[in-house]
């Protein structure tokens, strides 16, 4: 038998790699573009998400509303239905990450492919994960954001990889200055300045570790995530049973070397051919290009035929679905819904809390767009369901007055899109003064930095003259801040800029936020989110 690899399939494999690089670069480009670039409106940088049918279906089930942009996910479904899981193998940027590292680990002999009849059962895991996610959605517990590949990838990059890059860049810059290469240092510093990368995230270390873990799993099995864990891959797998592209092995040429099955990225098992798993194949063409005798090929068959598929145990499927049903109420055992949480300041335009939790897919796009790094992934602020949802932390950043970027980049409408004009009128919380720590009140010294920074006109922070008793028995008279809650929008710049560093003497809580009908304070201040007319004489 003449040994020669197929030129056609090697070319197709190269094409696939080029396309993967293209889409991963596109992902990076759109992600790095997600910040203030000089324009108030930044365009559809979140488009990748709208092609994800899992996010479309799960958020539609959880929120009982279909978000119009997700119509694009139908394209992915149609491609999969007709041709198979090309999207997983050729486009998905997380898939490309995993495949790249699998390749690296293989080359460095960390990953040694073995015959793996034993682990075939694990392929079913992802279908059970999908079942849990979808059943959870039915009970309005939005788990999809935790497991969806795009949410996972974006979240990991925004809160882990990019901050790492920014901080590594800072170390590099300081090295340049240390070496007296100050003009190179200046250039590098200006370059990083124009990228405006947020580099401070609570849980950033932990979220980075999760991503690192997902990458390192590739040492155990090639494309571990894609094979065993990815619920979006599972969903596409369900749609990939009747497609027209099939793997065939020409038994006249086959020398039964088993290379195709050994190097199959997703354990789709091209050989023996009758055990090929259509639902698992991502059409990477590794089998066809690695075959030493050109025996493996992909003919187009119009007629659907019976194909071996994953043996989903009905008992397990019912069990995992039941698990989700049983688990769903656990997520609700939390005081989060009982009372509004003081420190749960949501971005402007965020839907009322229950709706927000059903729609937010924890993708961190808003945290990338935020110009001041104010939006942070929640830990326990919003209860167990709300983990990694965005929460505004005034001590880290504040809500920039003329900015509505977070509302523009939200892929699911959990944050309603607002114009800059609309956004300036949205109240996300209220500011409070801790007179025991406020410099004029407590120490009788001038300050009112908060008043200076208050962005509204007229200012929500005004000042009054206050008499303070000093330790030596004398007293001092100073301008001290007072808050006009009718005007305060809760942006948090006062807390952010307060010179009392450790525990600011002025701070924001969520009370009075427009999005809630319960978390209100002064009843006479109730008014629609959009002010219709200017207050008559704000200056008295």
């Amino acid at each position, binding site marked *: 038998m003449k040994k020669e690899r197929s030129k056609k399939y090697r070319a197709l494999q190269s094409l696939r790699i080029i396309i993967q690089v293209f889409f991963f670069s596109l992902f990076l480009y759109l992600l790095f573009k997600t*910040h203030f670039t*000089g324009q108030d409106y930044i365009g559809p940088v979140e488009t990748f998400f709208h092609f994800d049918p899992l996010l479309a279906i799960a958020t539609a089930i959880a929120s009982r509303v279909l978000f119009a942009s997700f119509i694009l996910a139908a394209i992915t479904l149609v491609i999969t239905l007709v041709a198979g899981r090309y999207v997983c193998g050729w486009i998905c940027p997380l898939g490309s990450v995993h495949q790249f590292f699998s390749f690296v680990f293989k080359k460095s002999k960390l990953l040694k492919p073995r015959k793996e009849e034993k682990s075939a059962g694990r392929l079913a895991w992802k279908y059970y994960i999908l079942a849990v996610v979808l059943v959870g959605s039915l009970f309005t517990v939005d788990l999809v954001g935790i497991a969806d590949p795009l949410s996972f990838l974006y979240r990991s990059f925004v809160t882990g990889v990019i901050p790492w890059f920014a901080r590594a860049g800072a170390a590099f810059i300081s090295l340049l200055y240390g070496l007296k290469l100050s003009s190179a240092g200046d250039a590098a510093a200006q370059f990083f300045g124009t990228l405006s990368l947020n580099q401070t995230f609570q849980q950033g270390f932990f979220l980075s570790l999760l991503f690192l873990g997902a990458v390192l799993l590739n040492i155990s099995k090639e494309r571990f995530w894609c094979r065993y864990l990815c619920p979006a891959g599972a969903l596409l797998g369900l749609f990939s049973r009747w497609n027209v592209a099939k793997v065939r092995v020409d038994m006249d040429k086959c020398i039964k070397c088993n290379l195709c099955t050994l190097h199959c990225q997703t354990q789709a098992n091209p050989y023996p051919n009758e055990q090929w798993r259509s639902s698992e194949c991502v059409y990477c063409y590794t089998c066809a290009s690695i075959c030493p005798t050109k025996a493996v090929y992909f003919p187009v068959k119009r007629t659907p035929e019976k194909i071996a598929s994953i043996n989903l145990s009905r008992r397990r499927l019912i069990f995992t679905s039941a698990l989700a049903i049983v688990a769903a109420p656990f997520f609700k055992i939390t005081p989060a819904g009982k009372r509004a949480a003081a420190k749960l300041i949501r971005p402007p335009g965020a839907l009322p809390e229950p709706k927000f939790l059903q729609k937010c897919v924890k993708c961190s796009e808003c945290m990338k767009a935020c110009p001041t790094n104010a939006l942070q992934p929640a830990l326990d602020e919003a209860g167990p369901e709300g983990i990694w949802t965005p929460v505004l932390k005034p001590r880290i950043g504040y809500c920039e007055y*003329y900015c509505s970027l977070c509302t523009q980049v939200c892929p699911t409408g959990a944050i309603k899109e607002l114009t800059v004009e609309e956004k300036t009128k949205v109240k996300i919380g209220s500011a409070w003064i801790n007179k025991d720590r406020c410099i004029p009140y407590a120490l009788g010294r001038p300050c*009112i930095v908060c*008043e*200076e920074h208050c962005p509204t006109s007229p200012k929500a922070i005004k000042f009054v003259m206050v008499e303070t008793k000093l330790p030596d028995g004398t007293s001092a008279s100073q301008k001290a801040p007072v808050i006009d809650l009718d005007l305060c929008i809760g942006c948090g710049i006062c807390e952010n800029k307060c010179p009392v560093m450790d525990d600011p003497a002025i701070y924001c809580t969520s009370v009075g936020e427009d999005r809630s009908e319960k978390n209100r304070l002064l009843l006479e201040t109730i008014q629609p989110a959009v002010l219709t007319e200017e207050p008559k004489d704000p200056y008295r």
Partner: protein
Amino acid sequence: MYRRDFMKDLALGGVLLRYGPSLLAQTKPNPDMAMVTGESPAAITKEALLALGGMKRFVSKGDKVMIKPNIGWDRTPELAATTNPEVIRTLVELSFEAGAKEVTVMDNTTNQAQRCYARSGIAEAAKAAGAKVPFVNEYRLKKMALKGEWLKEWEVFTDFVETDKLINVPIAKHHSLCRLTIGMKNWLGAIGGPRNQLHQRLDEGMVDLAAFFKPQLTVLDAYRILTRNGPQGGRTSDVRLQKTVVASIDPVAADTVAAGFFEIRPEELAYLGFAQKRGLGQTNLEKLTIEKRAV
């Protein structure tokens, strides 16, 4: 020295002494301050510099020039929270015409720098005229001895120190704590560190900074002035059109003139008193030669 040379020098000196002063008197001495009003911010800036004796008086061939506007806030020029971009553009152009090798425009902003630079219109205008408009770079911060009365040392962006010529271009605005923020307060944008702590003795702090930076020229942008809700404003009703640009070699006098636009007497502003006492300049405008023009 030979006797002959000595006699020659003596004769030359005598002639110069006899006729020199009258020769000088024929060209009017340059004024200390020029105040120009008019419809176009660019035209009045140009005229103010012309009245002061031209940019060549301050900028020599091959100079590195640093222009320090107020770009502190994410606000459009109409809201008068930031220096007028046309004033900056004109100063950049004039500096290059006077032979400057390099002109830089920068400020340590309060809101996100990218937003302030863009919305104020200053980055675009200054770049169009050929200036560099970098963001402040914390690696260029250096703790320096200010030798002030209150501020002994503070972190300063070295860009404002390592330059041949320094031009301060403030805008005149209301401020709750020090009543008005004008030229001397503008130096808070040239430093780093916890600037918000300076508010505990803001008047003394800004005078210490003004004494440290000592600009060759102050160009006060009073085309629009912010009369209330400062230093950010937020509505056009907070703004008054003054249509004036004041160019001055005396930074204290520039602030004094600005205070006049708000009908505030110099003795009402503590920092003007401190500054005069430190010898930084004059609050008594009668002691200066002032050229007033309209375009």
